[in-house]
């Protein structure tokens, strides 16, 4: 392709991009990325899956948490090419097959575990990772596990309640602080 700015044939895609493929929410997905392309950028901009939010882009807030091979990771702090061949799960794949909210999502709604909703995709994905490892966590374990997920609205209390309820425990037993 002739590039008039530099006066010669130059194909950026050819020069600097690589194709990556991975399984996202159970479906094969692929696209061209640069070395520096973040997994969050690939999901949001290449695949159009904008559920994982970029809150800080400095690895602090956890709004971008997705699962890579079943493990919670901050997608803003992983290169897309590191996830080549991996199984990636995002908030978009969490609902039940019939489209209804899954247990954790429904519990967030029932217990007002969100206000503006910006942190929620990361919260739900972290909660899902926690409950997979530890199906009946204590309140302290829930709070400890959420240390990397910041919420500027709820004060966390209702998020903790929602996760206790999603694990089949009595959410109302948690006293407000």
């Amino acid at each position, binding site marked *: 392709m002739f590039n008039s700015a530099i006066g010669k044939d130059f194909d950026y895609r050819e020069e600097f991009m*690589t194709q990556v493929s991975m399984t996202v929410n159970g479906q094969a997905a692929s696209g061209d990325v640069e070395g*520096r392309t973040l997994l969050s950028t690939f999901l949001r901009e290449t695949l159009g899956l904008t559920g994982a939010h970029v809150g800080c882009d400095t690895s602090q807030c956890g709004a971008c948490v997705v699962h890579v091979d079943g493990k919670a990771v901050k997608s803003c702090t992983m290169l897309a*090419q590191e996830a080549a061949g991996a199984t990636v799960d995002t908030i978009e794949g969490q609902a039940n097959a019939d489209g209804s909210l899954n247990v954790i999502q429904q519990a967030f709604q029932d217990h007002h575990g969100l206000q503006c909703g910006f942190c929620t995709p990361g919260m739900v994905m972290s909660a899902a990772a926690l409950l997979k490892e530890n199906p009946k966590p204590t309140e302290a374990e829930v709070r400890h596990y959420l240390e990397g997920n910041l919420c500027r609205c709820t004060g966390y209390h209702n998020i903790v309640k929602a996760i206790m309820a999603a694990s089949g425990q009595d959410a109302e037993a948690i006293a407000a602080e």
Partner: protein
Amino acid sequence: MYNFEFEKPTTVADAVAALGGDDAQALGGGQTLIPTLKQRLNQPGKLVSLTGISEMNGVSVDGGVVTVGAATCHADVEAGAGAYPALAALAGQIGDPAVRNRGTVGGSLANNDPAACYPSAALGSGATIVTNTREIAADDYFQGMFSTALEEGEIITAVKFPIPDCASYQKFLQPASRFALTGVFVAKYGDNVRVAVTGASEEGVFRWAEAEAALSANFAPEAIDGLSVSADGMVGDIHGTPAYRAHLVGVMTKRAVAAAH
């Protein structure tokens, strides 16, 4: 971020070859390096990921030594280093779950952040840092804040931690960064006690010799009574003054001794 090439070799030999070129840099879990690149503080031409190298991954126990592959993430050390409970507990206190699922022991030791947790475990255990070319004693490895004995292009492949009679890491959390405001690792090997302090000194991790001598004679929290470290050369920032950190060194050492029993 400036752009770079990305390579993901599957053997140490291929990684070393890939790092041979100009301005190539190793990539562990990226939990420190990617944020640095986003700030354009660094401009490597190529990143060589070490996380696809199976010989650098995993925890094994043999003859009183826990060997951790340098590309093993903190969560896997937490789960796999049961033979050295204080080490497993330290790994489980780093950052948050998502950081622990990516960050690696090799990356932490190569970076040698003055507030990082792993350097205190390596120095406090008298660990051996194994690289692609040699073995380095922890006492020779740490050379001040963010600097180590590693040469250009040299990669850590594993870390060998001798298992002590008992040990504990006590971290006073800096809640915003999740690093240690001050952390102390105490380990007892027979009559020999090692005390390594992180987060406090401007020189990075260090051994507290007076406490080691006192604890080797009497392994009890009271042995620390009357001892103190000087505030000279301690880190001072909005989270704590040098005097506060110097005080925390004594407090966290006592807590570690009490918890190690």
